[in-house]
């Protein structure tokens, strides 16, 4: 259960970003989580919502985009998405491959209401 620590890191990043925007309100934060990141999206959502309750960020939306890991085949160089952990290369059938990502835990965007339309 490190999702609560992660939620707090996300909140620190939002607060840091909002410092340069006095009077504005943070509406939403967009996250990208890789399928191999060992992060439970629902636990993270729970930790985030519990942590912002009764703070200036209360009511913020958390948008989570989960991305599949990819691999590059060592036999034919084909790059493919890992739909299951044992997905072989769809082009040549080999299972020898280099992992490409899948452990992302990134903030992609912040939606801010600055009072202007």
């Amino acid at each position: 259960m490190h999702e609560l620590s992660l939620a707090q890191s996300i909140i620190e990043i939002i607060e840091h970003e909002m410092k340069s925007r006095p009077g504005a309100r943070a509406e939403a934060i967009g996250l990208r989580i890789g399928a191999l990141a060992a992060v439970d999206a629902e636990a993270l959502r729970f930790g985030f919502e519990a942590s912002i309750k009764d703070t200036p960020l209360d009511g913020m939306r958390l948008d989570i985009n989960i991305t599949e890991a990819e691999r590059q085949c060592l036999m034919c160089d084909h790059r493919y998405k890992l739909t299951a952990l044992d997905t072989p290369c769809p082009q040549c059938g080999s299972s020898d491959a280099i992992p490409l990502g899948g452990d992302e835990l990134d903030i992609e965007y912040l939606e801010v209401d600055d009072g202007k339309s």
Partner: protein
Amino acid sequence: MEKVEMKTKVLNENQRLAEELRERFRSHGVLVLNFISSPGSGKTELLERTLSSLPTTTKVAVLTGDIQTDNDARRLARYGFPVRQITTGGTCHLDGRMINRGLGELAELGSTLENLDILLIENIGNLVCPASYDLGEESKIVLLSVTEGEDKPLKYPSIFHKASLFLMTKIDLLPYVPFNADAAEANARTVHPAMEVIRCSSTAAGGLDTWIAWLEKKMKAAREAALTTANR
């Protein structure tokens, strides 16, 4: 409404610290290993055997993490090397800040990066959370004992994806448990095709020499890489 593109890592602060630590470790030629497993897979026992097997000229220090108690540090301190306990008081993983603090405490014991060959970090017993936190280590090492399930690499893919070595521990118990060692290796390679695997036992003959040889090879590589960089 304004949409601000961020492109930042959630753990950017930890990542920044970890990169700083990695740079310090590398420039001093210190091999740093981060040991991760479930509780009870034999991390402390393996470290005890490792400390007693390394040549006495090896300059080694240990940081050992636990949620509560300093029992592990007391066990490991018996071998005469500097050991510091990191007690997280509830946190389920070690992070870069804790390592930084631990390095300060090791320095108080006279063990600084200038006079170390290797730093062994025993993470909190947990196969999930420690996978997310870079500690600046050269390699993560995952332990899985034969009294656990051979499908753990499939259940906890993140750590098997990130570790470069899988130590299968307690292999002296293989005759008594239904664990299929080949299947466990195959499962680990399903998640991480290039995974190195060493089967070993900390209490009986078998595999420990291979592990110590792996360690010495990595230590030599870390030292040589630091010299090459310094001479450039």
